[in-house]
């Protein structure tokens, strides 16, 4: 396993994060997020490097990481589509729209398109229930979805 190295900018950011907490371990989630935002995934090498920074074992890092749904160990598409399927969205027709989206991308829910541009996932409530049906594409929330609006959004992403 090759050694994972943080960039100079990342080292600076890590210092800033660590300064927030009296106990280093608190920086675990922020560091995992930092790595995933740079690499799209958290590799075993990165888990070791994060463990070293925080004086915890790689096994501990992995155990914590596996608890949270937002971390990936496998590559996902450039755009991660999280489609809310919880109750307020269900009542407003999200099932039909999710089906439409999967069909448009020519993949099943949970899959990534062959050009690695889109990954489509079902998601639980994203706290935008008054804009149901809604989805989150990377960091952006899109509400009041219709088939037409979904097409427009996806077509506008390059």
């Amino acid at each position, binding site marked *: 396993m090759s050694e994972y190295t943080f960039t100079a900018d990342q080292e600076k950011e890590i210092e800033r994060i660590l300064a*927030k907490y*009296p*106990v*280093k*371990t*608190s*920086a*675990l*989630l*922020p560091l*995992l*997020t930092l790595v995933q935002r740079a690499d799209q995934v958290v590799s075993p090498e990165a888990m070791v490097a994060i463990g070293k920074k*925080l004086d*915890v074992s790689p096994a501990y890092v992995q*155990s*914590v990481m596996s*608890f*949270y*749904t*937002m*971390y990936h160990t496998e590559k996902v598409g450039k755009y991660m589509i*999280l489609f809310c*399927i*919880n*109750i*307020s969205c*269900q*009542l*407003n027709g999200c099932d039909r729209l999710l089906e439409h989206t999967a069909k448009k991308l020519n993949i099943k829910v949970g899959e990534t398109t062959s050009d690695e541009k889109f990954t489509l996932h079902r998601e*639980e*409530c*994203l*706290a*935008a*229930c*008054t*804009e*149901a049906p809604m989805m*989150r594409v990377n*960091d*952006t929330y899109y509400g009041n979805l219709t088939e037409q609006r979904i097409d427009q959004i996806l077509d506008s992403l390059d």
Partner: protein
Amino acid sequence: MTQILFKDINKEGLRTMKVYEELGGYQSLKKAFAQKPEEIVEAVKASGLRGRGGAGFPTGLKWSFLAKDVFPRYLCCNADESEPGTCKDRELLLKNPHLLIEGMILCSYACRIETGYIYMRGEFHDLSFIMDKALDEARAKGYLGKNILGSGFDLDIYTHLGAGAYICGEESALLNSLEGGRGEPRMKPPFPAVEGLYSKPTVINNVETLCVVPYIVNEGAESYAALGTEKSKGTKLVSVSGHVKKPGNYEIELGTPTSELIYNLAGGIQNDNKLKAFIPGGSSVPMLPASKVDTPYDYESLAEAGTMLGSGALIVIDDSINIVEATLRLISFYMHESCGKCTPCREGTRWLHQIVERIMQQKGKLEYITRLEDICDNMSFKTFCPLADACVAPVVSSIKHFRADYEEYFKNIPAGAAS
């Protein structure tokens, strides 16, 4: 209707220090620093403010439970808003971050706290930038940092992002997550006020709760207590969603009839369908049938009607859907979000899901309904945290009020299909 939290919510630039201060923001700090910390705690007690995150525990009382003379102490703002139906805190964070900071400063001063964290759900990544910017503005103004406004009181506040786990909205799971662990709930007692973050006395309050505090300090506890009902004081943000024409977050005085929220504020039922059911306080509380729509929206009246005010998320369901479909969706959510620590929750949520799914596939037997109730009985109050109870709520209430919807699935079952 009196607006406290949403008074200026749509003012342009509200999230900047400049506009926020022009509208009277941060005025409460000087008033607070002229008083003893205990006086602020007493004022919050007298205001009748209760936790707006779901449990409805009296806020001032919570603050007064902090272990005496143990320092440092911490404040954790619960901004992990994840309860299905609830999206009020997101609107506050997005549009009025300084109100939360002001509330956190007041709480910290009252409770002699020098470090605060805002635990935001991971999906609020963009909102954390808005919050960080507002925190920087507050630091630059001297509202955070050392010796705030010459009071001798020091405080800093930081944002912290979760990473996708509903359970982290439960306060002890939130603490474990903030400490860099798996978000599993802790055994209570000890309560966070005694042993919380890093085993130190900790106050954990919801975003909306903290946002009320500046009003109490500015206008006095009596002004706040004059709003609402005798026991449910003040105003509440209610997220109205589902089958309504104008879904949105609305601020009401507690005690306003639920029908006013549905038919007036939220514009009535979509397609002019008939109201069938509503879930008044987020997916974790029992649903009620349409006949209860005039129930005053306050803690006591909703409890009397057999449900709870919860986080203030009113989910409206019309007669176009079989309730079992909605119930299965909620069970599926709790099954996904169970942290797996307690057996009744880990296994129970799964069993409920399997059985309801079989019923919907017309592979059920009528006695399955009794089995569902039996499993629910074995899940209730038997776990570290209330997630199992939350899953039980829609199941038990849907059977109680909409048994006919379950029975629909037993009609016309082909002979021999049941197993």
